[in-house]
């Protein structure tokens, strides 16, 4: 039996692990080595320079600025996305009609559920092009709308203003993400046994009370996992930025520079693949720390049901 068990484990792990080691681990291991060299990226030659790149990185102002933007993205985008998604899910799933808490959503929920998921099926490249145009100060939809509404004084060169470019990018990321988490949370809410809501209603709890003291704790698990997904998505926001704001320096006055863009610039524009790899490794470490931190910090508040 024991022998059979290990043979089974080995059998199940062999193929996926082999794939993973060959295509994922080995390239990254090599990238880690490259981060300790001065490789320029185009020849087979490089010199080993130990932690030289990391020492330079520690005092590189542009790297830390980009890191700061990443931090801001990590803080704002998941938070706003989750709040929006929770709110939308709550009112279309458990808010009930005419105050009947816990039984179905408000009128039109069915329609909303279809529409809200739309952005999720829009490829990132398309979203980038679309919103690059949406924010066009001259012919874009946003300023056009503001003018139509007589709010012409609110028009801005959105992607050209250092104060607004990053928030604009965040808005697009949020726009694209809410749908998925909305559906995820709705489902989680639907799986909460209806009796729990019944009891709350009988106790005279209003919708807000019910949400805070019943719905949210019941689905906390989903919320926690969502934060990690969103964090990873945000760190991978390179593709969107690359299409929306194709600027090596990272937006107006460097105000939207994120680490992955700086990595790209160091590698492909400045020809410093060794340094770029060091940036990548640093980014990995930060992401890992973040994942661990989120898991640790939110663990205590889990509610079992």
């Amino acid at each position, binding site marked *: 039996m024991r022998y*059979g068990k*290990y043979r089974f484990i080995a059998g*199940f792990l062999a193929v*996926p692990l082999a*794939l*993973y080691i*060959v*295509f*994922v681990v*080995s*390239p*990254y291991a*090599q990238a880690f080595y490259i981060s300790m060299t001065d490789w320029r990226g185009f020849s087979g030659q490089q010199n080993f320079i130990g932690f030289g790149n990391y020492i330079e990185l520690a005092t590189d102002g542009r790297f830390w600025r980009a890191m700061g933007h990443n931090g801001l993205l990590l803080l704002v985008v998941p938070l706003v996305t989750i709040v929006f998604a929770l709110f939308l899910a709550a009112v279309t799933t458990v*808010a009930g009609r005419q*105050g009947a808490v816990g*039984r*179905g959503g*408000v009128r039109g929920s*069915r329609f*909303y559920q279809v529409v*809200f*998921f*739309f952005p999720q*099926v829009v*490829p*990132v*490249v*398309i979203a980038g*092009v*679309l919103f690059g145009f*949406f924010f066009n100060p*001259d*012919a*874009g*939809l946003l300023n*056009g709308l503001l003018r139509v509404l007589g709010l012409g004084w609110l028009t801005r060169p959105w992607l050209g203003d250092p104060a607004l470019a990053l928030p604009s990018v965040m808005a697009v990321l949020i*726009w694209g993400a809410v*749908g998925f988490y909305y*559906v*995820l*949370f*709705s*489902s989680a809410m*639907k*799986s909460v*046994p209806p009796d729990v809501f019944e009891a709350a*209603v009988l106790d005279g709890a*209003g*919708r807000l009370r019910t949400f805070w003291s019943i719905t949210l704790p019941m689905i906390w698990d*989903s919320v926690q*996992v969502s934060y990690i997904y969103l964090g990873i998505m945000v*760190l991978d926001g390179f*593709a969107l930025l690359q*299409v929306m704001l194709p600027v090596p320096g990272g937006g107006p006055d460097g105000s939207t520079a994120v680490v*992955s863009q700086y*990595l*790209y610039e160091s590698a492909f524009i400045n020809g410093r693949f060794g340094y770029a790899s060091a940036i*990548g490794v640093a980014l990995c470490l930060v992401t*890992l720390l973040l*994942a661990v931190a989120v898991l640790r910090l939110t663990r205590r508040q889990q509610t079992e049901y």
Partner: protein
Amino acid sequence: MTLGTSAPATTPPDRSQRRPRRHDDAHHKALTGERTLNVFTHGFLAVWAILVAVPLIWAVLTAFKTDSEIFSSPWSLPAQWQFGNFVRAWTTASIGTYFVNSLIVVSVSVVLVMLLGSMVAYVLARYEFPGRGVIYYAFVAGMTFPIFLALVPLFFVVQNLGMLGTYHGLILVYTAYALPFTVFFMTGFFRTLPSALAEAAMLDGCSHSGVFFRIMLPLARPGLISVGIFNFLGLWNQYLLPLVLMPDSDHYVLSQGLAVLAANQGYRSDWSALFAGLVIALLPVLAVYVVFQRRIQEGLSVGAIK
């Protein structure tokens, strides 16, 4: 529950007893104070729906305009519907071919990664063995790597295996890169499944793999569907991996084709064809979603209960 109309195909036992909606609403009057909240709620829902839909509708309209119309009046309808834009986009960007390429590569990858990922996750979730923690964290760490750090070494790995520019090469790479997420999610999922059933089956003489394929995998279907959808969307959007591994423009996947279309705008402006291309790429996906949205949402719903 109004939404209960969409009864999930694989309903877990605790969710199957739904109560009929009560029509006499005793609490109605007591809760009139929440009317303002109601107005606010409906307002917010409507605004969000508009925010979601308008850019897409606008993209479709724009795809029918001439270049000068695009720049002069973002809000007006096209004076004449320019179907030629679509012809130009179709011919210059080969959207159709790329679409099929994407479909092949992504579908096979998703099936493969779901199978392999579940196998790993199952073993990690249900068995004790030395090295389990190392393997689990090696996969979790894989989610955090920025992909283009690995691009150049990866290119050589694929080339040395003679898989450069092939579908199977790209499929294997996609599978490998989707594994961390799948393993992470499915491990959590398998941990929550009841073990009684598996133990009973083992007593009945079922083998380890028999238990997995006949009992655990069907039980995990909800989780498989939701992770599968997430993987599908993620790989459908993947752009850096094919850029380096699929250098032959006949084999481009859709995201590459679109990126080329967008990049070309930097050198020769043809806005209307760009938008037409985007719409061609977008509509089939949107249509598939609308047709299957109920199933997708059900898949996600059941997957959310952990």
